[in-house]
């Protein structure tokens, strides 16, 4: 195992933080939607639409910021379509979410036809004189792109929102029991639509991080399952924001490790590492469901259930 010696732990850690950002963004958005009781399986579709829309907007305007804005708007628009179908027309959430992924993949390929091989404007990185130059902490903490920090801020923000604000309490209440929330006079559909659209915007940003920062270029199907990992991540985290961050680093770490191990010549088939996030998620699911008395307390009780306002 001499190959492992060639891996620089700080470089791996720094790469891990970057690699985890797209799934972190998408997962924290999906977490909000699921805490409101909506299961949106279209994360992959919203991510890739965000990736291509953000890329196109950045190329057209030459401004990465406008690109990110467009990516969020693109993801949000697709999520709004989902909200209309599922909340307005009471379509089946699972089927609609799957369709949304297919639709997003197809639409992004169509939009992206003219952008293959194009270089986007460069994304800025944090550069704080003094701090960024610090030996270890500088590379780990102060040398990333804006979205990395935005992702961390979002986790903290969502956590505080759900825990401390009245709006967050109402959102959790809607996800726990839409009938009770309706009886108290809360707008179940409005709350859920807002949560879904927020989730879409986050997924769009996650996609844009791939196409504008990490790769950076546009290729068809470039999210390559990141949306599904994000979905698994929410369950893995048992619907808690900080655990999403932990899980994103874990899953992101696996991806980085995969590249490094290959570069270092360790003979583990790529497929094992590629499937490991899902295996880990299944193991976690089994563990949290094993205790029957606690299992149902983790998931929002009304998750995936359609709401018909009576009377």
């Amino acid at each position, binding site marked *: 195992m001499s190959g492992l010696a060639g891996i620089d732990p700080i470089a791996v850690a720094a790469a891990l933080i970057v690699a985890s950002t797209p799934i972190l963004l998408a997962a924290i958005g999906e977490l909000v939607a699921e805490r409101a009781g909506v299961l949106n399986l279209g994360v992959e579709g919203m991510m890739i639409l965000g990736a291509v829309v953000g890329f196109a907007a950045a190329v057209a305007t030459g401004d990465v910021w406008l690109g990110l804005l467009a990516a969020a708007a693109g993801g949000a628009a697709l999520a709004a379509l989902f909200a209309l179908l599922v909340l307005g027309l009471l379509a089946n959430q699972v089927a609609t979410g799957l369709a949304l992924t297919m639709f997003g993949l197809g639409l992004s390929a169509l939009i992206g036809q003219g952008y293959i091989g194009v270089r986007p404007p460069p994304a800025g990185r944090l550069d704080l004189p003094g701090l960024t130059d610090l030996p270890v902490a500088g590379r780990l903490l102060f040398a990333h792109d804006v979205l990395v920090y935005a992702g961390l801020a979002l986790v903290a923000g969502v956590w505080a929102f759900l825990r401390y604000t*009245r709006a967050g*309490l*109402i959102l*959790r*209440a809607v996800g*726990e*029991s839409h*009938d*009770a*929330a309706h*009886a*108290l*006079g*809360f707008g179940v559909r409005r709350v859920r639509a807002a949560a879904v659209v927020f989730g879409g915007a986050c997924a769009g940003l996650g996609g844009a991080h791939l196409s504008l920062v990490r790769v950076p270029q546009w290729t068809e199907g470039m999210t390559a399952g990141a949306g599904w990992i994000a979905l698994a991540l929410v369950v893995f985290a048992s619907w808690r924001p900080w655990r999403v961050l932990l899980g994103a680093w874990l899953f992101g770490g696996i991806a980085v490790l995969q590249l490094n191990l290959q570069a270092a010549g360790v003979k583990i088939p790529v497929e094992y590492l590629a499937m490991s996030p899902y295996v880990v998620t299944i193991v976690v699911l089994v563990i949290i469901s094993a205790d*029957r*008395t*606690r*299992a*149902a*307390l983790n998931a*929002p*009780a009304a998750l995936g259930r359609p709401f018909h306002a009576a*009377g």
Partner: protein
Amino acid sequence: MTAGPPLLEVEGITKAYPGVVANAGVSFAIRHGAVHALLGENGAGKSTLVKIIYGLVRPDAGRMRLAGAPYAPASPAAARAAGVAMVFQHFSLFEALTVAENVALGMERPPPMRRLTARIRAVSGAYGLPLDPDRPVADLSAGERQRVEIVRCLLQEPRLLIMDEPTSVLTPQEVEILFGTLRRIAAEGTSILYISHKLEEIILLCESATILRGGKVVAGCDPRQRAARELAEMMVGRLIAPAARAAAPGGAPVLEVAGLSLPPAGPHGRALREVGLTVAAGEILGIGGVAGNGQDELLAALSGERRAAAAAVRLDGRPIGALGPAARRAAGLCAAPEERLGHAAAPDMTLTENALLTGAVRERLVRRGMIDWRAARAFAARVVAAFDVRTPGTEVPARALSGGNLQKFVIGREILQRPRALVVNQPTWGVDAAAAATIRQALIDLAAGGAAVVVISQDLDELLELAHRFAALNEGRLSAARPVEGLTLREIGLMLGGAHGMQAARPEAGRLAHDPA
């Protein structure tokens, strides 16, 4: 009770749904500080009327005035802002959230959590409704959940408090204390609109009553001046003969349960602990208990949905505890669970298909794996005819039947299979009085024919009317059965677990509830 204009005036409220007029020109008034009863059978339009007053449903016609001012709430929030609060029949609580969070959700402008927590402690203590604000609601009993709702309402200092069938989940002791609390609230000037179909309660508590039948007001009266039978006749519109119970039999034991213990099935389930009972041929055993004390679990253990040690359940001496529901039916033990739609019957399947689902074995509706549809239809038709199930035919989905009619069907389906022993849970829950009388008489007749019958119910009056012996479920334990003859309500209450820690309201309660801090 102060003079002057009434607190709430309802005038000519009309609300129609496709195919049914829920309210037709309903008018009545509630005085300040009065406890006013809204009385009626299921389907009489009580719920719709209350939803209109609470802003959940908008009426087609009619007006309301609150303290003399026009009142037309567009939402529950508007109703709360006007001073109308409501305790729901099916609790509007969120299991995963804490007591304090649940209270905060029901308030327009809740104070910061720490202050709210302190106020919940103060008010709940003062009114004899002890609560720990930091506990998740999932851990609370039904009675405690109701306390959460009441405290949530009291903290809003309402002018009108609506209580929708509040006593269905309480023991008699808890009911007594609740009434003390309600009288105290009324004495402080808050009017109470009390919805119920339990006549004794209304006679005890209310000073005026409006009786609804078929969506119309049929009478307004002072219930304290009336006998329960008079009120019942006004409510139903005709005489109801009480079910005639046969004398206690001395038959051989048919159904025997001994040392039956089961862990809880889900996160909010109950464990059964060392349950034992014996029911003789021709006997009806009534099992009472506050909701959530193991009724569903007991039914599942007896029906075979959950299996136990073979010797834990015996039918005519034969151990059947390890058998599943179909095998137990074949042996002669039938069961009808509480939830009609989704447990006793598959909502989207027809009556014939539903009859087939439990009748296949005993009625031989399946031959060599093939369904005998003609026999199945004939069996369903027999149930419909014998139990006066109002339905266009046997080929309509179970969902299309009203609660009472479907209940008659699912009970009748088991009775017509001529079981050796029958276990039913809440056989007349949410069923109108006429259908309830039919079902009770059928259970009595079944026992008179030599079957052993176990009736699990939260309706004590029903158990006292039907059962020869009475046992109580409390926290998954079953008390020893006692002959119903000579049992007092007070004794039953103690068997059910007493007051579950409730205490009478203290005199300074009002001051605390209205303390602006």
